[in-house]
């Protein structure tokens, strides 16, 4: 079972090879090497999955290696290989593999080709490390590495101002979540003295941790998860993160990084299951996220942003699933979503390859020019809406029925979400592929650019699309006989396993979600396909909602203008200006005569300041003494 780690080593090695051998090393070799390494990792993941299936999803034993053992701190580096991590391994490596193949063509000729593959392989390796981590600190280390790589990849085209800003934003916003994660680690360590994931589960189930501490721990973890998985109110970075190359978006925002948050909550499911407050928060945040993000998706004009909002809302679904104790449904949805979402992103990249733009208002009619792209994207879209028998239907249906079983209000929200999803998916399809072609990106002179006649993408890009389309169509069938159930649940401690919800397949739920999806598509057709209803009129009726949506609920403003610029930087500037005005100026005025008298040298020495510094020290001494003796006289 050590072999996945070996492949991780191979990929990391490639990172350095790709980076250092710039001269004689043909950039394409980096690509081949990365693809080969990830292919090996993929094969090993399948092998690992096989092992996990044999063990019915229970943990395959591997005793960790001592890492840090000092006093009560006992950190073992180890590998967690069970049903959950095996599934994650397969998802990560398979999507990553296809994305790398696609990138060989998409990134051709880009100056940073080596760098691209180096980052991509490091990124994949970190993600694998995260999934396999057996203690929470090890997990956190890879968690941060994943964050760092995504930062580097989003800012890949760093000469673009927007890419830089997006990268910074992603880094800072997710760090806010990581803060929660770090606090959670501190809390659990000080409560139990344990860092091993299994040990923490045991402690939580045995009631060895106080209920407040347990809730705080779970909420801290969830804050980290919400940062990475772009849950409200930390979702703001993901749409901007579309500034990276499109294959990066497919990898980060479909299969790996954003899935990390869901994986984290699932991995600590036994803990969340013990805290009612925590799991309700997960459900509520998931529900809010699913709705607000799909509303935003309806307004976006950039095809990649539509996908981004869609990802956010689907992650909301997974969180909802976890929040109703439906861990099987949530991971199942993660699994199917990885395929159809990666496909959607790669499809968007293919469209961009043909038209030179991501703006849907400049597309249209592409079904005629790009049949393969169209059909694959169509399949993925229908899977996203959740129409049977495509993959998304099965997993979404399972979340819905689990929700009905556990918390009916979540079910209602989820059903509304299905409708909204269908609306933005339909809108995207009609604008991009329906109607007449609108000329792609215009050159500065207002004439159609080089992309006057859109064309289908090269074969190397289409192969991954087709493979993913097949997966998007059939991936739902793996759980048709509860095949995933034992795999995902097998590792759970018995006490937690009993809590898992199994809504089961119910005809009326399946029918109503399908109906909601069709209704949504119908609305989209009325407005954007047949244009029976003017979109402006819809907009007019819905005032002021569109405006709020266009400003993304004013959250960006709140964060950037209010918190960062207003409170932090403004506060700093204010403090410094006070300092200047009262302290420096005051001192200078006070010793003005002296200063004038001692001319040049004195201006250099600024004797006034040194006196002042000493006075502050003395004031500090007096303050400290007074503080201790007056406040606490005993």
């Amino acid at each position: 079972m050590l072999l996945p780690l070996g492949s991780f080593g191979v990929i990391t090695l490639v990172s350095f090879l790709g980076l250092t051998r710039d001269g004689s090393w043909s950039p394409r070799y980096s690509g081949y090497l990365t693809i080969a390494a990830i292919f090996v990792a993929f094969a090993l993941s399948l092998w690992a999955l096989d092992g996990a299936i044999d063990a019915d999803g229970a943990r395959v034993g591997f005793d960790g290696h001592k890492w840090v053992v000092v006093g009560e701190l006992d950190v073992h580096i180890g590998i967690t290989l069970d049903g959950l991590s095996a599934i994650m391994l397969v998802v990560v490596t398979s999507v990553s593999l296809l994305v790398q193949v696609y990138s060989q063509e998409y990134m051709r000729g880009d100056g940073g080709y080596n760098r691209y593959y180096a980052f991509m392989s490091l990124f994949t390796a970190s993600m694998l490390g995260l999934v396999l981590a057996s203690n929470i600190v090890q997990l956190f280390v890879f968690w941060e590495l994943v964050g760092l790589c995504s930062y580097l990849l989003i800012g890949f085209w760093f000469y673009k101002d927007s890419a830089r800003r997006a990268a910074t934003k992603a880094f800072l916003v997710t760090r806010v979540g990581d803060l929660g994660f770090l606090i959670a680690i501190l809390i659990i360590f000080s409560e139990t003295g344990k860092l091993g994931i299994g040990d923490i589960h045991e402690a939580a189930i045995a009631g060895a941790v106080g209920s407040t501490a347990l809730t705080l721990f779970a909420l801290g973890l969830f804050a980290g998860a919400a940062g990475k998985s772009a849950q409200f109110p930390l979702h703001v970075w993901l749409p901007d993160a579309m500034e990276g190359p499109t294959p990066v978006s497919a990898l980060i925002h479909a299969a790996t990084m954003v899935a990390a948050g869901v994986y984290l909550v699932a991995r600590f499911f036994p803990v969340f299951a013990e805290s009612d407050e925590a799991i309700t928060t997960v459900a509520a945040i998931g529900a809010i996220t699913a709705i607000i993000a799909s509303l935003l998706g309806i307004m976006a004009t950039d095809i990649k942003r539509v996908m981004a909002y869609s990802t956010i809302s689907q992650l909301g679904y997974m969180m909802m699933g976890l929040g109703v104790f439906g861990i099987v449904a949530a991971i199942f949805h993660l699994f199917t979503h990885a395929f159809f979402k990666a496909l959607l992103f790669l499809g968007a990249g293919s469209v961009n390859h043909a038209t030179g733009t991501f703006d849907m208002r400049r597309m249209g009619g592409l079904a005629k020019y790009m049949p393969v792209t169209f059909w694959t994207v169509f399949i993925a879209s229908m899977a996203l809406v959740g129409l049977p028998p495509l993959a998304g239907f099965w997993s979404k249906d399972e979340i819905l029925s689990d929700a009905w079983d556990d918390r009916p209000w979540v079910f209602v929200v989820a059903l509304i979400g299905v409708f909204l999803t269908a609306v933005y998916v339909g809108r995207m399809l009609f604008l991009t592929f329906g109607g007449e072609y609108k000329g792609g990106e215009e050159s500065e002179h207002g004439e159609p650019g080089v992309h006057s006649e859109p064309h289908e993408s090269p074969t190397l890009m289409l192969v991954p699309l087709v493979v993913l389309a097949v997966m998007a169509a059939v991936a739902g069938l793996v759980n048709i006989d509860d095949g995933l159930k034992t795999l995902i649940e097998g590792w759970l401690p018995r006490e937690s396993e009993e809590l898992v919800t199994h809504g089961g397949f119910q005809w009326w739920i399946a029918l109503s979600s399908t109906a909601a999806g069709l209704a949504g598509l119908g609305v989209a057709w009325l407005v954007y396909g047949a244009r029976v209803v003017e979109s402006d009129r819809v907009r007019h009726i819905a005032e002021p909602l569109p405006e709020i949506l266009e400003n993304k609920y004013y959250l960006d403003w709140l964060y950037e203008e209010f918190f960062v610029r207003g409170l932090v930087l403004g506060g700093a500037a204010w403090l410094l200006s006070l300092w200047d005005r009262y302290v420096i100026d005051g001192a200078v005025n006070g010793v003005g005569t002296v200063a004038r008298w001692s001319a040049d040298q004195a201006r250099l020495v600024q004797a006034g300041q040194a006196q002042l510094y000493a006075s502050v020290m003395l004031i500090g001494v007096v303050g400290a003494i007074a503080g201790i003796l007056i406040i606490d006289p005993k």
Partner: protein
Amino acid sequence: MEDINRFGPELALLIAAGLIVVGDVTLPMRGGTRRVASVALGLAGLAVSALWSLVLIVADERGNAFDGLMVVDDFSLFFNFLFVGIAAVIILASVDLLEKSRFRAEYVALVLTSTVGMMLMASTVDLIAIFAALELQAISFYVLVAFLKDGRSSEAALKYLLLGAVSTALTLYGMAYLFGLSGSTNLNDIAAFVAGADSGTRPALVLAAVFLAAGLGFKMAVVPFQMWVPDVYQGAPTPVTAYLSVASKAAGFAVVMRVFVVALGHGLISSDWSNMFAAIAAISMTLGNVAALAQSDIKRMLGYSSIAQAGTFLIGLAAVAANDPQLLLGTSSVVFFLGTYAFTNLGAFIAIIAISNKIGSDQIGDYAGVARRSPWLAAGLTACLLSLTGIPPLAGFWGKFWVFNAAVRADLVWLALIGVLNSVISAYYYVGVVLKMYTQEPANDEAFQPSPYLGLAMTAAVVGLVAVGLYPAPLLDASESAAAVLG
């Protein structure tokens, strides 16, 4: 002889310093040879000193020396290695600076004498001896800060001297109180007195503790005794700034740990100074970070950030509560953090020396595109800055983690929270520099390399922080046994 043997590490440095100065005057050598000779002799002295410390460990020669004025124990040995290592890196980093100066031998000798002062600060256990050690270190530093002899350097040195004198006075005042109360200058005797003191002596003990904290707070550079930091950091030669920011600070903490944990740790005012340090920690972190946000000069920025870092160390000291297991956790976390911080901040300063030498500016704005011009320096600086931010798997992460952990264990959750929040604020300006280097267009595309000495020094620091980050156990072990001595 036993005394001399235990004083060996310091003695080696003193002899080396003497040889350097005398040799420089008496031997007929050319300028270039002089420089190489001084540097080589200095490094040789440091190597002998480190070896001697090693021998002391291997032969288990721990124990008192000079009638209990100083002691060789795991704590002092830890700091011996730390200071010798820092001094070696600093001498390497100063080679370029010395090229321009006539006073090479004096510079190296002063680095060695200040190192002796700091080693003694960590190993003396008697107030008089501690004071002598403090002065030896301080006076060496006053001269080093003035070394450039230009306007800014002189101004910085004068400020440092004036305020240093005030801090000395405060320290001495605190010591006088302790001596007056207990009738002894030995820390262990004072500890015995404090442990048995009745509550009537509390006000006087509080006075003593506050004066000592203030005087030593100057060395540690914590609010409100940090006012000299930005001016002096900016004015001093950059290698000296680096030296000040790690070694002088670490030595200050070493003394504080000896005095407060050993002498004042068990008894009626331990919770008083714990509260005081908690308050100072919170204020230092917050003010340091907020001020660092607004800086455009990278040396000033690191100056303010070092104030904030010192505040973070103080969290560990504040976590030293009365009962023993936590005492160990608090002090060992500080010792460990000091070790990691030394590598990290040194690496950052050396990278800055190398970069600023070439681009001729300390302005953060001028760091645009450095990654394109000198990938290795940019990568090194990035590693150091990320470690300062506390991002795993670099050494700085473990330092912060360990200190926060100590705080949470000591029921100082609020303080740990402030610490964690502050590390988020600090990410903003540390990462800001990284962004500048990696994501902006350079003014010109001319590539540059660090001089071999600087390259070696920076590589050593970066390797250290990555190694400790990946495998922190040895350093944790060492700091834990160092802290165990004080308990």
